[in-house]
């Protein structure tokens, strides 16, 4: 017998590994509204099966916890059972020898403490507080509620114009979203249970690139009602589009030279080409709303006057002011905010960074945007300094990877301390303090200064991308409630105490995503219409094809490719390559049609109008 042998994975282990992956994907794709008590029982069962069986709390305790939770589920528990569950879990947590028992108990504690009311509801009335009311994961996750299975089925039939027309029922920016949406729709895609989420954004982009000239939407009879939309970004334009379709007379007031808001002044053209944005806006404008650019409401036009002249107002001013870091040297020449840089690029006023060393502060998508823009402006080097770990960045992982591929360097665990300046007040260097990943709070480790010396990074430009603020002061003075700079609005977009005034988008939520801004515009349009005494319905005239049968054989998700870094980093032209038709047809065939198969055919499936 040999003293040592090389351990290789046998087929049993391989199967188990696959099952682990299956389970992981399955949990990722969990639909909302599931019973937390039932889930706790199931998770606990998995945990228990992981027990090696050596120690009492884990081997026996987890089993007894399962019994107790099962009693809650089958209606045989007393109210005191909840306390017993908590006390038992606490005891297992404290006495378990290793993490297998300890962490299982922690999960139970989290569940029983977080959902105590649900446990009691089960005990008292045999039912769950949760409601399974939205069974189509992608539609539910999309803030605008776009009919995703519907348009994917149209794409599969090569009916691209119909597909985009169906999208426009809920989202008037399909081309924009096809390029830059954060695609929350993909997060819980049920296809994940089979193999991987559908590439929904990619399919949307493909459809918009192949729709041809879009057919205008029919406008309802003119109502004579006048609505002012303040801010021509995605939220304001969405509201303007739907309100115009409803027959209202809409005027959009935009303080900048051109429409688009953050789509133009926040997102660089290599992600969203200007011609795509311009043609999308031109289509929306066919509904006939009026636009006044270069008018700043509150400054050039009093809010009170506007309220007097119009039947309703929609405030969608976005979040366009920059935030300061609050460090020494921040006022030096060469310190530029992300907002400032991206705004200039938006107006085609390209600064020249040729040969410059640039440091970017921040870890969000905007930080990546300015870093990658700096590369394209000719910078010699671009370093992204971030005080946490790279994996803690709020930017999408693909954005971070893209920036690195473009040649940016990520300096993780580095907090900005001060900006060193030259005698004539220009940026000389960025001083950074190395950090140590500390305790996890809110899902991310808190950075604490490490016992390491400061790091000096010589540079010519410091680009600050640590978030944006909202220029809401004038609205506050008018009497609109403002909380920490944000306009306070209800979930139906009405503003408390200001009849006829509605607000939505970034100025209400703080800097968020395009699709959330669009959704806010849609919600506002519906409620402004109702406020004005109407019930115009937005519907689609697109009929859907027969639901296809499919065996759900696991197959690969089709991802989009990007232009080679060496090529793309020299220009602002679109970086991402779209799908081919072959790819789009293959990808669209992967959709499971949760609107037809599953709960969707019973309740909450297709929403044909709003």
């Amino acid at each position, binding site marked *: 017998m040999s003293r040592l042998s090389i351990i290789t994975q046998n087929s049993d282990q391989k199967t188990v590994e696959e099952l682990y992956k299956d389970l992981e994907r399955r949990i990722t794709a969990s639909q909302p509204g*599931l*019973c937390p008590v039932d889930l706790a029982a199931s998770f606990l069962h998995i945990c228990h099966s992981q027990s090696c069986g050596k120690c009492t709390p884990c081997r026996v305790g987890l089993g007894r916890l399962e019994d107790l939770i099962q009693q809650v589920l089958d*209606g045989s528990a007393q109210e005191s059972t909840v306390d017993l569950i908590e006390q038992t879990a606490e005891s297992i947590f404290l006495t378990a020898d290793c993490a297998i028992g300890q962490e299982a108990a922690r999960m139970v504690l989290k569940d029983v403490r977080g959902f105590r009311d649900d446990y009691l509801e089960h005990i008292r009335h045999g039912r769950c507080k949760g409601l*399974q009311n939205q069974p189509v994961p992608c539609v539910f996750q999309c803030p605008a509620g776009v009919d995703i299975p519907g348009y994917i089925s149209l794409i599969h039939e090569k009916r691209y114009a119909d597909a985009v027309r169906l999208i426009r029922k809920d989202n008037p920016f399909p081309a924009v979203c096809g390029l830059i949406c954060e695609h929350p729709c993909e997060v819980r895609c049920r296809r994940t249970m089979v193999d991987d989420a559908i590439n929904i954004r990619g399919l949307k982009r493909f459809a918009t690139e192949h729709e041809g000239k879009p057919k205008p939407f029919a406008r309802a009879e003119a109502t004579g009602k006048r609505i002012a939309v303040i801010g021509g970004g995605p939220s304001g334009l969405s509201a303007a589009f739907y309100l115009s379709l409803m027959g209202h007379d809409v005027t959009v007031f935009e303080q900048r030279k051109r429409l688009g808001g953050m789509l133009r002044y926040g997102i660089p053209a290599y992600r969203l080409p200007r011609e795509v944005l311009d043609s999308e806006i031109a289509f929306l404008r066919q509904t006939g709303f009026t636009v006044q650019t270069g008018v700043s409401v509150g400054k050039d036009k009093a809010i009170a006057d506007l309220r007097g002249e119009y039947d309703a107002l929609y405030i969608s001013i976005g979040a366009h002011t920059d935030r300061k870091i609050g460090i020494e040297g921040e006022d030096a020449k060469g310190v530029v905010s992300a907002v400032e840089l991206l705004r200039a690029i938006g107006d085609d006023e390209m600064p020249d960074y040729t040969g410059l060393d640039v440091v970017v502060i921040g870890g969000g998508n905007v930080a990546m945007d300015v870093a990658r823009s700096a590369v394209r402006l000719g910078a010699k080097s671009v370093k992204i300094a971030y005080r946490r770990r790279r994996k803690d960045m709020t930017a999408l992982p693909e954005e971070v990877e893209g920036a690195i591929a473009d040649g940016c360097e990520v300096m993780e665990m580095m907090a900005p301390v001060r900006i060193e300046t030259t005698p004539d007040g220009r940026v000389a260097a960025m001083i950074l303090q190395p950090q140590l990943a500390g305790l996890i709070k809110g899902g991310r480790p808190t950075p604490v200064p490490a016992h390491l010396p400061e790091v000096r990074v010589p540079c010519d430009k410091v680009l600050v991308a640590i978030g944006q603020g909202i220029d809401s002061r004038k609205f506050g003075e008018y009497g609109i409630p403002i909380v920490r700079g944000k306009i306070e609005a209800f979930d139906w977009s009405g503003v408390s105490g200001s009849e006829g005034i509605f607000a939505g988008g970034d100025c209400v939520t703080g800097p968020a995503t395009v699709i959330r801004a669009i959704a806010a515009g849609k919600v506002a349009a519906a409620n402004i219409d109702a406020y004005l005494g109407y019930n115009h319905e937005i519907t689609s005239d697109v009929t859907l094809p*027969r639901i296809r049968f499919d065996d759900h054989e696991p197959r690969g998700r089709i991802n989009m490719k990007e232009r080679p870094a060496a090529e793309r980093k020299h220009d602002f032209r679109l970086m991402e390559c779209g799908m081919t038709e072959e790819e789009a047809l293959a990808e669209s065939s992967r959709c499971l049609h949760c609107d*037809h198969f599953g709960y969707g055919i019973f309740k909450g499936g297709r929403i044909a109008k709003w």
Partner: protein
Amino acid sequence: MVTVTIDNKTVTVPESTTILDAARAAGIRIPTLCYWKDLNEIGACRVCVVEVEGYDRLFTACNNKVDEGMVIHTNSAKALDGRRTNVQLILSEHNTSCTTCVRSGNCRLQDIAGDLNILDNPYPLHLPKPKAPSDFPLIRDNQKCIKCMRCVQVCEKVQKTGIWDVINTGAQTSVDVTGVYSLEDSDCALCGQCITHCPVGALRERDDTAEVLRAIHDPDITTVVQIAPSVRAGWGEPFGLGPETATVKRLGAALRTIGVDYVFDTDFSADLTIVEEASELLERLKHRDTEKFPMFTSCCPGWVRYCKGHFPQFVDQISTSKSPQQMFGAMIKSYFAEKIGKDPKKICSISIMPCLAKKAECALPTMQDAEGNRDVDYVLTTREVSRLIRMCHIVPGDLPEEEMDAPLGIGSGAGNIFGASGGVMEAALRTAYVKVTGERPDPDHTFLALRGMKGWKEAEFNLAGTKLKVAVASGLGNAHDLLTALEKGDVHYDFVEIMACPGGCVGGGGQPIRDGAEMAPLRAPTLYRQDEAMKLRFSHENPAVLACYRDYLGEPLSERAEELLHTDQHGWKMPGEA
């Protein structure tokens, strides 16, 4: 058109045809369980699964459409195995004590299990804890529920009441009332449509036959039965008798055989209702400026419950006239008791109704005297009366017809059509027309716009220069739409008839159950045919009604009529009513 092959038969059907319908067109009947055409096409039970060539998975026939060239096998080994396994799985969570089940012999699950030759079940039985028994007229047995979701669908889509919903997820998934924890605390109108759409015995009415038999067998008690108009359109179905044989007179004979002392016809009090309600309407029309319109009919207690629970703002506009059942009850315990010289407390008044809401209505505090003696003591549904007949081993088809008892046994054709949607309105207008114009309208043609199965009908009539705009809605979903339109000011009417059940009482929740079929369209014509064949066509001409007024009530809307025949719709409250 698309051509498909099903079990080696080729059939050409329009596009968008389901596999189920295409198979039917080819003469092949695929078994279904949860399916109900146009109502519940959700593929929940997975019994109608079939094999489609080219695919490994099985697909449900009820809600998937055929495609050109499709080759389908409904009885392949795979399809049959899948179907049988699913039925066995359903049976593993179903209390199969069929011998004591009200639906034994008329149960979709029983039929399918039998058809599939399921002689054993490899799966252990898992039954949920039963709920505490209750004496509410509508009873749900969660050990029998197979989660087909039909009740949820009919309650939400057809009736728009949304009382039933799915609760919980996973293994705990069940059906229960939403918002509150018990049916008693809900705004349930007691239309009973969930019962007539239930494939199994999970939903049923409270069975009152034992109490009725006790009264019949008590020598001190005089039992008096009234039979609702719509009962004669359906009671024979469980016995395989058509309406020509299953007449009200033959049902009367059966009831007398069981031991009932007097058998009356609710057609009589329907006529009485018309005289009172038409008088009330004409009275209200005299004060168009002060009265709120429309006036609503009050004969359907399901509608009254619904209005109080869901649209309380309209309760004042409901006619104060009692329903025909309760008018009859009041007359039995007063006028009739006097006539036969019997202490009303020694009279047991029983009504045979197509309805569950009437079980609740007769127990209302406004429908009894100060000592708690009810005007109507027991309500039996059409189904219960058929069970009573079976219990007493009576073969109704063998019985000769017997005349109804006097003096409350006479009814007009107008009273007879009360059982169909539009019938109350038509009966009222026949009388109102005579009262206003002095002329008799042609009962066969004048009011045809009010007949038929349309859920929301409207018409305008000219009564000697007075324009009367009326509407008729049946099914609470249609009532919801009509009331919402009234509220918004989109429509205006003078008089509106509402019945809770689609098609009216002929489609009542207490009527015999035929799985998968809406019976109202088949039953309603019976009532109109009978009306047409009757000599007496106008409620106010009913000699028994006239005698009542002459001998006892005085004028319509007289003090005594108000006391006996009218009610305060605010005299009791629905659970959520302020």
